């Protein structure tokens, strides 16, 4: 019997009527869910064996979420959720195992919630704590059953009048506890997600059952008048207690919130400090050591400036995969490689296509040439409009004679002019004594043509 909880594929499914035990079991055994449920109901009438078995599984078997999270710590995790729920008729397996189960839960019982929010407590801690609690609970339950049995064997008549209210209390508590299942608990704490009608309905039903059970047990054979009086008194006492405790609870909640936001701020600060330490401080140390070499110092400072700028001002609204970002990245690469500053100015932007990729590659080649032969700051200007995309790369070097180095010219011709032509664009190189400018042009029509083929 104790082997049950250590079998990993057995997990309580989120496709549930009560606690997902039957469908989880069906998935585990490869049987139809309906048969398992029927068997469980039949067994329940056989002296309550089914009920005990069900409760046992409920307590001992983790939910699919929990199982997935537990196995996620092990490297071979992606298979586990697929193994644990193959019979659910889920044609599409969601890519993330953590997302699969709650989605199904939403469809089944209206009580699904995003599991992402509950990543805060370490799962091992949680799972460990729950395990312990479950064993105690199980022990108590078994002791209770044993006690009842022993009492009956000793001839004590266990009256239905006591058992029924007790059962009502237990089932009410169970229904309420379903809310507090592993996946629900974080949701209840996170109040924005707790206000789902189904969840509140269950909670209310559970509470009503418990209250009714307690009332019947307490009032026993007493008259209705007494019961009403007792009810009134209890409600009055409860109200008073709530009135007294509410300010404390609110204060506690606010303290908790304040502490949490404080912790978030602290984390942010630590992240910034860590980043500055890893980047700026290291670069400053390097600069101090290379103080004699002006070229190195400038290169280090430029690279660090670029990095810090990117980190500080990165606009999350702008996509990083756009053409302008690619051109800037190419410029940064050239800058790091050869040490000369490459200033990029962009006007407009375009999505990346195959033709635009060629444009970026040609521009990169031109930047490398400009930086290598120009020897000074390289100016890059990108203008993307509806009709066409243009990139200009300008340096202030001595300029190169077209017939100077045949091999180099071939490289320029192949990787700049040839590449642009192959993608429906054009390239022109203008070299004077004041510097060289490479002009790359790509009509939008060429992109479309490229995209269709």
């Amino acid at each position, binding site marked *: 019997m104790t082997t049950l909880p250590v079998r990993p594929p057995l997990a309580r499914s989120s496709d549930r009527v009560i606690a997902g035990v039957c469908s989880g079991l069906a998935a585990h055994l490869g049987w139809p869910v309906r048969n398992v449920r029927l068997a469980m109901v039949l067994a329940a009438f056989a002296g309550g064996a089914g009920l005990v078995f069900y409760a046992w599984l409920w307590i001992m078997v983790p939910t699919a979420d929990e199982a997935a999270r537990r196995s996620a710590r092990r490297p071979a995790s992606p298979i586990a959720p697929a193994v644990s729920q193959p019979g659910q008729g889920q044609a599409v397996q969601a890519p993330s195992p953590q997302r699969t189960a709650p989605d199904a839960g939403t469809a089944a019982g209206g009580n699904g919630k995003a599991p992402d929010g509950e990543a805060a407590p370490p799962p091992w801690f949680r799972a460990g704590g729950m395990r312990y609690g479950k064993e105690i609970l199980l022990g108590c339950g078994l002791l209770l059953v044993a006690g009842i049995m022993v009492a009956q064997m000793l001839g004590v008549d266990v009256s239905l009048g006591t058992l029924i209210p007790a059962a009502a209390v237990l089932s009410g508590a169970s229904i309420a506890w379903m809310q507090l299942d592993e996946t629900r608990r974080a949701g209840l704490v996170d109040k924005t997600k707790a206000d789902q009608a189904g969840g509140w309905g269950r909670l209310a039903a559970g509470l009503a059952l418990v209250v009714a059970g307690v009332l019947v047990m307490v009032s026993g054979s007493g008259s209705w008048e007494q019961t009403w009086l007792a009810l009134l008194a209890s409600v009055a006492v409860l109200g008073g207690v709530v009135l007294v405790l509410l300010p404390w609870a609110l204060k506690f909640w606010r303290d908790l919130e304040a502490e949490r936001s404080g912790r978030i701020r602290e984390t942010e600060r630590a992240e910034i400090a860590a980043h500055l330490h890893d980047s700026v401080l290291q670069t400053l140390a390097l600069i101090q050591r290379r103080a004699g070499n002006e070229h190195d110092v400038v290169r280090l400072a430029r690279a660090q400036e670029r990095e810090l700028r990117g980190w500080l001002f990165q*606009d999350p609204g702008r996509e990083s995969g756009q053409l302008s970002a690619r051109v800037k990245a190419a410029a940064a690469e050239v800058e790091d490689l050869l040490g000369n500053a490459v200033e990029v*100015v*962009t*006007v*407009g932007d375009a999505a990346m296509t195959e033709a635009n990729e060629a444009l970026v590659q040609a521009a990169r080649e031109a930047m490398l040439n400009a930086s290598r032969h120009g020897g000074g*700051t390289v*100016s890059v*200007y990108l*203008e993307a*409009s509806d009709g066409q995309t243009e990139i200009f790369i300008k340096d202030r070097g001595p300029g190169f004679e077209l017939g100077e180095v045949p091999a180099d010219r071939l490289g320029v011709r192949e990787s700049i002019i040839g590449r642009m032509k192959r993608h429906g664009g054009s390239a022109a190189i203008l070299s004077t004594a004041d510097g060289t400018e490479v002009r790359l042009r790509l009509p939008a029509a060429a992109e479309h043509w490229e995209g269709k083929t």
Partner: protein
Amino acid sequence: MNMTQGTGPGSTRPASSVRVVIVDDHAIFRSGLKADLDASIHVVGEAATVEQAIAVIAGQRPDVVLLDVHLPGGLGGGGREVIAGSAALLSTTRFLALSVSDAAEDVVAVIRAGARGYVTKTISGAEITDAVHRVAGGDAVFSPRLAGFVLDAFGTAPADIADDELDKLSARELEVMRLIARGYSYKEVAKELFISIKTVETHVSAVLRKLQLSSRHELTKWAAERRLL
């Protein structure tokens, strides 16, 4: 749009000395800049905050103020606030914005407040000296990046005749802005377009005026949306 006064602008820069006030909250940067500027420029005052800057500018009445976009003090408006506080002197004192931030929002704000140009703090001493002389001569100084901002804000399509002239750039102004964005100096722009340097300066000044006076609400919106380029 001829803004010359006394010595003419154009290719021959006036060799007469220009009185300059440097406004920047970093003492290291101020002293570095002072050392970088050439002998034709006299630094007559320095300031580190908005209040100091307004006081020093009013007291010294310099030809040019080198103004950092980001400054402590005042109401938090930085360089823009300094220009607003010195509005009475705007006809004799020119402001050249210096920035390290590159944020279009900041740069456009300070230009619209009345600065005659914008350069990045990383440019060389010779370039900044040249820019100071240019601004002192009444011209506008556009870095490639500022030209890029202008093109982005006004759009790259030339103005129709029906359009409000302040809201669009003419075809010629667009050409000039494009070349500046490509890294061309005024001289190179003039050569490329077969016009005189003076004409280039006139076009740039016209663009600056449009940038300052255009009521295009898109301009401010655009600058606010575009935190960085």
